[in-house]
């Protein structure tokens, strides 16, 4: 065997098993799902071609519209809640504004290890009528009749879930930003400090501009994560009551595995991907403009 042959063969031995598993379990099904989305199919017999019918039905469905709104609220709380809070925490830790920073860091990052299902059931208990929140409010306000009514409100039912998502993920962003802040060359900051730059100037002129790329990357994770939000909400409310807390992934799941509308469900899943790609492109457009402005 020549050197070139040996190299070529080794290459395929190394790369082929992975790409085979990946292609057959992800690439092929995505294409399959895409074609199924133009059909009506209940899992038996042959799928019948339906054109854009599924997409049309979904978009005009009020349950879907409410789910989409909930998903967008999750995107908003991730991008404008978890990311700035995570950054703020990381910045305070990095600038050593508190003593025992590593203790706080350990505690705030901890929820990442807990399974979303466990998180969901725990917070359900906290918000339940015999839970911590109700008991605390009752003893503080001296009103033994207090109950949480927020889940009965169509517009606000999602709010407790947004809070739990914030609780779960802020620590992750903190860790990511903290690691990136540690990577910055300290000499730049020291020089600025010697030149008499204030804390605010250093943050706005040096630290934030150098973090734009990282923030944009994490925002991509946040957007795609927000659109596929499922586990936590499924275990917390199942999308209920009366679809108030439903998100697209649950809408898709229910239609597929409860009503056996495979084509319809596939169309919903394609909409998730399209939304993610669309929002990410939009984000990249803005972050590129922002980066240019800092240059």
């Amino acid at each position: 065997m020549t050197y070139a042959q040996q190299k070529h063969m080794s290459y395929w031995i190394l790369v082929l098993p992975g790409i085979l598993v990946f292609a057959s379990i992800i690439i092929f099904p995505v294409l399959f799902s895409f074609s199924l989305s133009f059909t009506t199919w209940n899992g038996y017999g042959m799928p019948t071609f339906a054109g854009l019918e599924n997409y049309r039905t979904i978009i005009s469905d009020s349950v879907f519209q409410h789910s989409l709104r909930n998903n967008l609220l999750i995107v908003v709380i991730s991008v404008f809640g978890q990311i700035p809070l995570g950054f703020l925490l990381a910045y305070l830790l990095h600038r050593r504004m508190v003593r025992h920073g590593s203790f706080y860091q350990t505690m705030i990052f901890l929820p990442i290890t807990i399974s979303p299902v466990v998180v969901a059931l725990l917070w359900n208990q906290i918000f339940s009528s015999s839970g911590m929140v109700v008991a605390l409010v009752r003893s503080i306000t001296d009103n033994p009749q207090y109950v949480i009514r927020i889940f009965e409100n169509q517009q606000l039912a999602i709010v407790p879930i947004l809070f739990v998502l914030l609780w779960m993920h802020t620590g992750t962003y903190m860790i990511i930003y903290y690691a990136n802040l540690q990577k910055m060359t300290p000499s730049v900051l020291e020089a600025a400090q010697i030149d008499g730059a204030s804390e605010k100037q250093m943050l706005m002129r040096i630290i934030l501009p150098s973090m734009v790329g990282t923030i944009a990357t994490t925002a991509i994770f946040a957007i795609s994560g927000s659109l596929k939000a499922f586990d936590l909400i499924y275990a917390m409310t199942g999308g209920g009551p009366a679809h108030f807390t439903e998100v697209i992934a649950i809408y898709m799941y229910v239609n597929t595995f409860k009503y056996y509308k495979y084509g319809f469900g596939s169309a919903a899943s394609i909409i998730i991907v399209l939304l993610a790609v669309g929002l990410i492109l939009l984000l990249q457009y803005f972050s590129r403009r922002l980066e240019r402005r800092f240059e």
Partner: protein
Amino acid sequence: MKKSVTIGKILAYILMITFTLLTVVPLVWMILSSFKPHALIVRQPLAPPFTFYVENFILSWVQGHLGIYFLNSIVYSLSATFVTVILAMSSGYALSKFHYRSGRIIYGLYTLGLLITVHSVIVPLFIMETKLGISNTRLGVILPYIAFGLPFQVFLATTYVKGIPDSMQESAIIDGATFLEVFVKIIIPVATPILSTMFIYTFLGNWNEFVLVLTLTSDMMIRSLPVGINSFAGGMSRDYGLQFAALVIGTVPMIIFYMIFKDKIAQGFAAGSLKE
């Protein structure tokens, strides 16, 4: 000047302490509640347990079949993680040091994979597995775990191996080593730090995975811990004591895991966004 620094510090402490309490208080409440009988949880949610009511743990472990779920979770997480890391590492070596044109395409496909969610493949996957007869089997769970673990791990491995100097590989090749020997004897030992990060990060993801097991299995004997714990929420048990005990069983091992591997987990999350 001095004053604004102190105010900043006070605000910093308030923020840190608030977030820490938000993590600690619910977990402590959960652990305390797990030692209380149902009636006491409902009547006095904030009271500490007057006795250690361990029956909750025994009953939830037995009735909820948590032993089986625990074992399944270990089997799924360990085996899928092991295979994912090996495949990702070998791909990472091939994609970063061989410079074939196909390498770029393959790397591009993996990058695209980062955007694809479980939900966009779950319907076809379910159909495929049913046709192949591997739905409702352990293999039918492990294979998707591997596939969904790969994109990010290939990314981590490729980035890391790229940073290993070419000279190490070249001198071994000149001495007559094959590329596979280089992989086993040079790349893997040098990449040990990233390998452990990859392993721990992937393990965590697999351990907490929910949707795939929920949809691809229906046989209780092969379901995993998150799905098992979720069944406590439904009609299975109105007994809050059992539910809290199940939550503690699901949480405490992970908190210990976290305390041991915290830095590695943090690295896994941070590595995806670090700029070179």
